[in-house]
């Protein structure tokens, strides 16, 4: 058999499905032989007839040796018993033509036997995929071990034993001939993980450094050392990014590792189902993080099984529909930004959205009304619900309604997105979009009232700014019509119970998140931006909080929680707050002037007194602070709800400009009137006041009436 493979590798032998049948079958036989040897200690106690297969291998192999030099190179294969040696001179003297005929004859014979055997043993084997990719098949023989446990055990007694069984017992895989030696070392995954963690810390440090640099730049504009600092900071950030990518790369594996088992699977399936299916693989060199490669295998198996079983029709039906008799499944992988996309396309009968709806109603998963409101895309998404199957009969292969649920769970675990597209009669396209890595991710930072959350960018489809009156309520659910789709909406602050401290404007931001096959619009108050974040666990104590996937430390050293998109979607179902109504119900608790509080910040007690006096006619309560720091602490403590602040510019500890800037950093004080009251009258001072966030600028000396009117205007009294 090695000879056969060898020749195929050197292009001497044309691989036909028949040849592959023989090869695969012999592999199965070898495996069962190995099992037998392992279980019984010898190979004579189980009746496995390898004579026939050996002879066939010989035919294929020796038929060509007449005109070719055999290159003796090892195939990197599992232990290979070479039983063919015995009688391989018989055919070598024949002419090509004769050999061809002989092969033809023997193959026919073999096919007959094959059929008989299959009937007798009951375990169907060896499917015919016409000209499958040979390389991938070969690499994969090792992996198929588990599924081949029931390799055909032939019932007739042993007629002739070969030496092969015994040699295989002792023959370890003879791998790695000199030519294939690679410059690699094996590294424990744990070490890589540790390295990854360290890099994570470094990335956090880098983010902080960048932030500090921004602050420094602002403060010491035009200073010479800034240039130098800039250089250092940017080179560090560059190197860190490169380092991160490099470490990530060390964890990457080509997706071929997963893809390689599919040709054999499809081949076996197609034989079993009596269909002709061709599998086309492309992009198997695309690389993915190791942990993801491990997770992605199962979902793909299920999807491809489904395509084979339900998607591709049998030959007759296909012909009747004017399609080529051989069904085609394409398995494609490619990179798209920070994602890898795996596309599984079949040209089968496609998904029928109406059938899906009826089935779902039958099973009581959705009501008829829901079904009517469903778009085709949403109907396709039904296939991911557990226990829904479109198959009329449950087969060995699929139809139990479990598989797609597994797909969904696994892809969700990876923060991936599933997109199903199908046309009845033309086929189905399933797209899996998976982030390249899990430890460091890109996230969209959003603000809900005063709190910030990070949403994995992998799950963010788009962000839109909408006026509030575009939000409609249907059956207690908030929805938004976005282009031709109806999107359910939920406010992030409702999900996480964020305190409502300030009301939004006429518009609001919606982050459209998608996970697996579902979509949701999340209403947030601010969009902060995109940032690279390192996922940290919340620890045992806070493990498993619904809706939170972890935490990250931002550039400013604060902790920001990362949203668990899958859980968020679940949580969203339980929330029935009318967004529009609650947004419009303006929180107006203050009614009389004495409810209002004005904070007077000035270092001179006399000035504060003057301010106090001027405001007496309005009747508001006045608090005092003697410097910026004190005022800021009062605002921070949120003990009083302050409605306006009068700020002197020249003060010890923290001046007025800085105070205004600090206050504006709090989102809840974004609209707080800040009135500068100062003796600085120059234009540049005024300008600086505006820049730092002052809403009014009053110069000393002022008339009490003037101050009064300004305050009145600003707190709307």
């Amino acid at each position, binding site marked *: 058999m090695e000879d056969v493979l060898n020749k195929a590798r050197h292009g001497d032998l044309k691989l036909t499905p028949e040849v592959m049948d023989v090869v695969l079958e012999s592999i199965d036989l070898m495996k069962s032989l190995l099992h037998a040897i392992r279980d019984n200690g010898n190979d004579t106690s189980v009746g496995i007839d390898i004579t026939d297969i050996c002879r066939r291998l010989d035919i294929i192999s020796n038929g060509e040796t007449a005109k070719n030099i055999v290159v003796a190179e090892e195939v990197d294969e599992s232990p290979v018993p070479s039983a063919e040696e015995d009688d391989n001179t018989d055919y070598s003297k024949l002419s090509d033509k004769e050999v061809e005929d002989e092969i033809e004859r023997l193959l026919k014979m073999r096919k007959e036997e094959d059929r008989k055997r299959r009937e007798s043993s009951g375990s169907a084997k060896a499917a015919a995929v016409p000209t499958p990719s040979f390389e991938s098949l070969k690499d994969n023989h090792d992996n198929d071990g588990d599924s081949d446990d029931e390799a055909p055990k032939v019932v007739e007694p042993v007629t002739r034993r070969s030496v092969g069984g015994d040699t295989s017992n002792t023959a370890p895989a003879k791998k790695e001939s000199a030519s294939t030696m690679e410059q690699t070392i094996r590294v424990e995954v744990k070490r890589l993980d540790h390295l990854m963690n360290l890099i994570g*810390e470094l990335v*956090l440090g880098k983010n902080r450094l960048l932030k500090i640099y921004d602050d420094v730049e602002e403060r010491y504009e035009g200073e010479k050392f800034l240039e130098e600092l800039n250089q250092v900071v940017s080179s560090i950030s560059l190197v860190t990014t490169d380092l991160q990518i490099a470490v990530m790369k060390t964890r990457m594996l080509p997706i071929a590792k997963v893809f390689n088992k599919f040709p054999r699977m499809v081949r076996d399936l197609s034989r079993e189902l009596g269909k002709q299916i061709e599998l086309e693989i492309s992009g198997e060199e695309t690389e993915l993080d190791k942990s993801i490669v491990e997770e992605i295998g199962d979902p793909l198996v299920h999807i491809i099984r489904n395509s084979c079983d339900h998607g591709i029709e049998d030959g007759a039906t296909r012909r009747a529909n004017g399609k080529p008799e051989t069904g085609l499944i394409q398995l494609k992988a490619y990179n798209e930004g920070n994602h890898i996309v795996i596309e599984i396309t079949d040209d089968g009968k496609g998904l029928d959205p109406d059938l899906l709806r009826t089935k779902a109603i039958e099973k009581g998963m959705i009501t008829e009304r829901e079904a009517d409101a469903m778009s085709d895309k949403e109907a396709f998404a039904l296939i991911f619900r557990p226990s829904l199957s479109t198959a009329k009969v449950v087969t060995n292969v699929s139809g139990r309604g479990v598989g797609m649920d597994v797909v969904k769970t696994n892809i969700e675990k990876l923060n991936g997105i599933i997109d199903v597209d199908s046309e009845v009669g033309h086929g189905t396209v399933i797209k899996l979009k998976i982030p390249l890595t899990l430890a460091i991710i890109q996230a969209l930072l959003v603000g809900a009232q005063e*709190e910030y959350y990070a949403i994995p960018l992998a799950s963010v489809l788009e962000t839109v700014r909408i006026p509030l009156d575009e939000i409609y309520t249907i059956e207690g659910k908030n929805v938004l019509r976005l282009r031709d789709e109806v999107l359910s909406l939920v406010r992030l602050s409702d*999900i*996480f*119970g*964020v305190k409502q401290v300030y009301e939004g404007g006429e518009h609001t931001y919606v982050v459209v998140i998608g996970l697996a096959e579902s979509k949701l619009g999340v209403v947030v108050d601010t969009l902060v931006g995109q940032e690279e974040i390192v996922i*940290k*666990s*919340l*620890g*045992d*104590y*806070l*493990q498993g*909080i*619904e*809706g*939170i996937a972890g*935490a990250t*430390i931002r550039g400013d*050293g*604060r*902790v*920001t*929680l990362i949203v668990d998109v899958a859980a968020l979607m679940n949580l969203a179902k339980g929330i029935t707050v009318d967004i529009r109504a609650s947004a419009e119900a303006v929180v107006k608790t203050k009614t009389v002037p004495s409810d209002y509080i004005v904070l007077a910040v000035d270092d001179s007690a006399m000035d504060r007194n003057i301010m106090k006096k001027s405001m007496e006619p309005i009747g508001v309560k006045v608090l005092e602070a003697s410097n910026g720091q004190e005022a800021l602490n009062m605002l921070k*403590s949120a*003990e009083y709800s302050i409605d306006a602040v009068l700020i002197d510019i020249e003060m010890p500890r923290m001046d007025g400009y800085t105070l205004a800037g600090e206050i504006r950093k709090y989102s809840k004080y974004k609209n707080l009137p800040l009135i500068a009251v100062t003796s600085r009258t120059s234009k540049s001072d005024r300008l600086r006041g505006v820049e730092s966030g002052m809403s009014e600028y009053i110069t000393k000396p002022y008339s009490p009436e003037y101050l009064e009117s300004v305050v009145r205007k600003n707190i709307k009294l």
Partner: protein
Amino acid sequence: MNDKLNQILQKQQQQVDEPHKKEDDIIQLVGFIIGQEEYAVPILSIQEIIKPIEYTRVPSVPDYILGVFNLRGSVIPLIDLRRKFKMDPVKVTEDTRYIVMKGKDNTAGFVIDRLTEAIRIKSSRIGPPPETIHAEKGLVYGIGMREENILTILKVEQLLKRDF
């Protein structure tokens, strides 16, 4: 050298685990005030004591869990002992501290009103907790008698156990 170190470490661990093994064992505690009462925890279970820093609220947890904070790159939960002991929350003052306690597999910060002192107390002067006073089951390790007052000694492992 290493053996010696191990021995010392083991001894320390023993001290943490069973502070009253011998009658005359001296236990070292750190005392702090919550509300009106003085509490204490074994000194070895304390990782560090820090001044209040900013923390991030975590949704859908009991109210005594204030959130999480960043301790030099680690995300650590912050627990308000006042609320945990069903007292009214107060504002952060100059004296407020976070005590970061480390257990076997958990670390958490606890908000306390004020630190008092490091205390050395003989284990013979520690009595079992009276059964009636604390609704919070198992949190109290024992009551320490001192000349001028009494101490409630808390069980750190229990404090660090998730109970929701």
